[in-house]
């Protein structure tokens, strides 16, 4: 089959591991207050995290940096647990796409399945 390559640029580069660590540390600061290392984790308790705090935390990031973080997490979650191979990420500074753009994270609750329809723009471009 003849290949028609995408005109859009490749996705953002992954964040550095140190940036992911900082991100997780920040995110986990909004964990449920009742969690305690000496008590077995309780699901109802875990779900009592601070969603408004998480939202504000994510809203404070640019879309570009969120995606760089997500990219690094997705890459690393599949790798060997212990890092044997050195972190070779050479991330160039990326332009901020827009300051304080609202987070695109999936909503926590999904009462009814909904999917966005395909954008007409894409179909037009395809033709």
């Amino acid at each position, binding site marked *: 089959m003849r290949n028609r390559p995408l005109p859009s640029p490749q996705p953002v580069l992954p964040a550095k591991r140190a940036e992911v660590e900082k991100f997780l540390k920040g995110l986990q600061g909004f964990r449920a207050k009742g*969690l305690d290392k000496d008590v077995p984790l309780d699901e109802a308790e875990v779900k009592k995290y601070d969603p408004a705090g998480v939202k504000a935390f994510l809203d404070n990031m640019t879309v570009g940096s969120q995606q760089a973080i997500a990219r690094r997490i997705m890459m690393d979650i599949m790798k060997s647990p212990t890092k044997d191979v050195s972190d070779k990420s050479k991330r160039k500074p990326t332009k901020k796409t827009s300051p304080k753009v609202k987070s695109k994270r999936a909503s926590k609750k999904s009462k009814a399945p909904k999917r966005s329809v395909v954008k007409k723009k894409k*179909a037009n471009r395809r033709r």
Partner: protein
Amino acid sequence: MSTYNATRDSEQLRYLKVDIASFIQRYESKPMTSGRRTLFLFPGGMGTQLLRAQTPYQDNGTPQTFQYDNYWLSPLTFLGGALFLGMHKHGNHFRDYEDKIVIPYGAVNFLGLTPYSRFTQWCELNDLDWFIFGWDWRRRPEESVHFFFHKFLPLFRSTVQNQCGVDPLQDFILMGHSFGGMVVKLMLHHQDQVLDNMTRAVTVASPFYGYDGQIRRWFEGEPLLNKIGSIDVTAQMIKVISSLPGGYVLPYLDDQTFLNNPSLQTDPDYPLNQYPSRDFSNAAQDVDPFNPGPNRYPTHNDTGFDVNELQHALTVYRKIAAAPPAAHASKFFNLRGIQSPTGSTTGSITWSALTGPNNPHASPVTGGPGNPGDGTLPAWSARLVTLNSNQIVPVKGNIDHMLIMEDDLTHAAIAQVL
């Protein structure tokens, strides 16, 4: 009378109906020309979103529906949610932790990023009618195969036929990324007439001969999930991972498969020169992850590791590693990724015997030197060695295992085999 398994299936189908409706919308937005092809993409392991019911299933035989939260992958995952994705045996089947049904739904989407959005855009541009089939990577892969053929496809076909007046399975492609490719390979062994209409089965970065990551998770957990702030939950995480039957087909190949495939060692580009799992103190001794001998894995009481499941997984794994059935062999293609510069990927392990309970912070498994590969899978694992060389396509460049489907280089390689 409703059962846990039947309820889980019907809940998955309830969500899939939404995706079928989206497929139809996309389908009808294009001119109704002949020769259209449907492409089913099976995401990689951990690449499908998992929704967990808010309330437990009631064993009273009544039909039940649930509301769900996204446990994989969302901020909740990193706030302790991942610890509730374990499974437990119930008779001959597995159920979800505390009987709260978990269903797969589409590709993961974390902070607005999915591993397949550019791929689906590429499909649009190249006139392929795509459908992402989310599957539960925690469960035995053969269960996803059965669900696909016996539950999903009949519904998909009849719904599209009723609404569009065409058969969406007159020419279709099965494509699997990573673990999803192993599910696709299993599908080729499924006896079903609908496979006569399958014109291509393509795997991208699939671990036909395993990888080190799964073995190490049984000892070390998952670093990104082992802590919730200052709380160390590594031991709980290991128990969750050990409870998931899906992962038991993913360790390095068994000794017999290695011996039965001497061509693994003679691959001109990426040979597997020796068995990849060896004893730490005696390098001449193989340690077959499917049959490693005493004191290699933690006991069931310690971490929940299940040697019976490992034996079950071996029979499934051998089917995955076997040559494809003759009827489909010429339609089967494997793409494998090789990062440049090469040598970025762990390609072997050494393994010490345990002298007591597992200590997650002192793993008995150590990774060997870097090999050519995609950053996760060594290149020698990512294709079926019995396949003709012209059905194995390398994807070389600045690629990475989890996001390989998003890369222009991969798209070009896929076009080459379609």
